[in-house]
């Protein structure tokens, strides 16, 4: 589903970025990506989704090279950023309609999906309000709903649980399970290690722009330790 080969992205004028990252996210994977602050998690996710251009390497989304055919690759992806900076001049429903128009989601189909997801996340009544009046958590929910409208094959999320109330976090976990059961894949960064340990079947740990370890959760975290302990050991 997602193949990252020797990815490198260094910000101009600095020595910060990521280097030599190789990962493989397969269908059905819920893949956690963890690292300390400034390790390069967001840089990697933004490079994979086409927001940043990368200096070296290759990113294949469903077999499509994102550098050569970004449009086709992006149609398979949905990206949820860590900071839900979305169009504050639109209402919630206008934003969802805009995203649906970009992905060519039909009117009937979007009506059903928006109604369903908005109900699950309990923001239906607020969809008529301007996004500028939304709390951080409400914006996060709106972005999540917008990400699901076109049935993405690969859902890429940057710290998706931040700002969500417990019920919304539960709904998100349910949705993640549904997506992977239907043949999709999820690749997300998080600081909430116990959620990652329970939810994910694979994990990668990044430190200072380099991949330290990656693989099956059951192999990285064996019975005698925890993901937190592994993480602390790795980043120290």
């Amino acid at each position: 589903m997602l193949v990252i080969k020797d990815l490198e992205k260094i910000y101009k004028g600095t020595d910060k970025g990521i280097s030599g990252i190789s990962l493989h996210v397969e269908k059905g994977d819920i893949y956690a990506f963890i690292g300390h602050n400034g390790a390069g998690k967001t840089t990697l996710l933004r490079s994979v989704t086409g927001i940043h251009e990368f200096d070296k390497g290759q990113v294949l989304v469903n077999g499509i090279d994102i550098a050569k055919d970004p449009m086709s690759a992006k149609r398979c992806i949905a990206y949820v950023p860590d900071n839900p900076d979305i169009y504050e001049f639109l209402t919630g429903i206008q934003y969802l309609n805009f995203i649906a128009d970009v992905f060519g989601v039909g009117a009937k189909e979007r009506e059903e999906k928006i109604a369903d997801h908005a109900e699950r996340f309990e923001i239906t009544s607020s969809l008529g309000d301007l996004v500028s009046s939304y709390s951080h958590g409400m914006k996060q929910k709106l972005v999540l709903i917008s990400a699901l409208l076109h049935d993405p094959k690969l859902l890429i999320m940057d710290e998706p649980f931040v700002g969500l109330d417990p019920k919304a976090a539960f709904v998100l976990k349910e949705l993640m399970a549904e997506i992977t059961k239907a043949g999709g894949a999820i690749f997300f960064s998080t600081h909430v290690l116990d959620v990652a340990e329970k939810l994910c079947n694979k994990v990668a740990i990044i430190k200072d722009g380099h991949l330290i370890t990656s693989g099956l959760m059951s192999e990285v975290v064996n019975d005698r330790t925890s993901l937190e302990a592994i993480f602390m050991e790795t980043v120290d």
Partner: protein
Amino acid sequence: MKQLITFTRLELINIFGINVRRYVKDPAAKKRYAVLTAAYVILALVFGGYLCGGAYGLAVLGAGEYIPMLYPLISSLLIFVLGAFRAKAVFYREKDIEMLSALPAGSLPIAVSRFIRTYAENAAINALILLPALMICGIYGNYGAAFYINLLIALIVVPILPTALMAWAGIVITAIIARNRHKVLTEVVLMLVIVTLSFMLPFFVGSGNSDFSSQGADLSKLSSEEARQVMSEQIAGAAHGIEASVPFIRTWGSFYNGSNFPGLLIYALISLGVSFLSVAIIGHNFFAISAALFPVSVHHEFKMGTMQQSNLLSALINKEAKRYFSSGVYVSNTIVGPVMALIFSVALGFFDPQELIKGAGGLPVDINVSAGLPFIIGMIFAMMTIAASSVSMEGKNIWILKSLPVSFTDMMNAKLLFNLIVIAPFYAVSEIVLLFTVHATLIGRLWLILAPAAMIVFSVTFGLFMNLKFPKFDWENAMEVVKQSAATGLSMLALFAALLPGIALMLIPEVYKDIVCLISIVLISIAALLLYKKILTQRV
């Protein structure tokens, strides 16, 4: 006192973006700031040169005594008019009020620090206007040391009162806008009213002139000494008109020409008194005023209804429209051009620019204003295009378009088309009006249609190209992008260059006008097409 120093340091640390320029590491951002600084310097030199030239002209014509009257007035008005709308973004910044309210800090130090910052910025504008003009006045007027001492005091004193009044105007304007359902429309109307009144002010204050016996004299037929005499009389007449409308101005002028030092001191004390009182009242109620100026949106219970699918380009243009009309700063600064062009087209039915110049005494060279009209109208239309800020206006939302399956071509086409869609109705109505207000041959009518159209398309494509070259996404206030960016500054400079054919047309013999017009329109159109192709090769 400690808090005042802390907050003042915070306000001044990034005045004119100095701190950001100092610490930014990204080479693209450094380059952008360098270009922006260069653009500001050029614009400041052009503006300063224009004012300086005016002062020099007054001095040479023996009317240098009016400089200490007029230039502080120009500076004060400019500071007040520009500042009244800036006050909302600068003085009563919405974004950090919440954070500041939670701090163990009094509202008075915060308000005073913002007043100091605003005063510092206004003092810089004042220095740009006053310093060269009063230096020229001093040199030609053979004034003594007292004049130059007063000049230094003027640099400090002149901005004080307008800054205080600007803070009050900011409350009034922001309150009117905040309490109106149609916020953007209200802001645009207020801006247009204030700008139009500012333009019309010289006509009102000059109307008291009754000693204008040399009106209508053709300067080209006079000797240089006679022409000088005539222009000197005309300026004296205009100055009498200003005095009749603004009676204290001569006294005020005496403060700055060194002849009334006690008067200057008293005026300075009054200015400071008004400012202290204003800051004390506003400062004491700062948080309450800020909270009242930015009311929370009302919740409307939403009910799901039927939805419609739009194609991608329509969706993108619709998004551009919603962004545009959600920002009063964006609309008011970019709609001025098309509105002024429409007003100008109507005004041409009431006055002939050629007669106006003749009535003012003519110019040293023969010019045919009507020949340059197509390009003058085009330039007015194309001032401050929407496209010159449209990429930067994506701001922190830029990740949305970059992560979506939206091609760069579609993105740029939407921005270009939206800008043209906004201008189109004004252009169409203006062209219909020109049918009645300007008498022209068939060929002349064709140039009136084609030249503005070519200049509009050129300025829109140039503006977008410049914005792609110098984007700014890390802004907190739309004003940073719409008014203070390298792209908008450079776009304005390019527009002056595009006006050159119009100037040439006013000077060249009649027989060459049509061919020059045709060549100019073709060249401008080709430039626009090349820019469009170049735009499609860029990336954000």
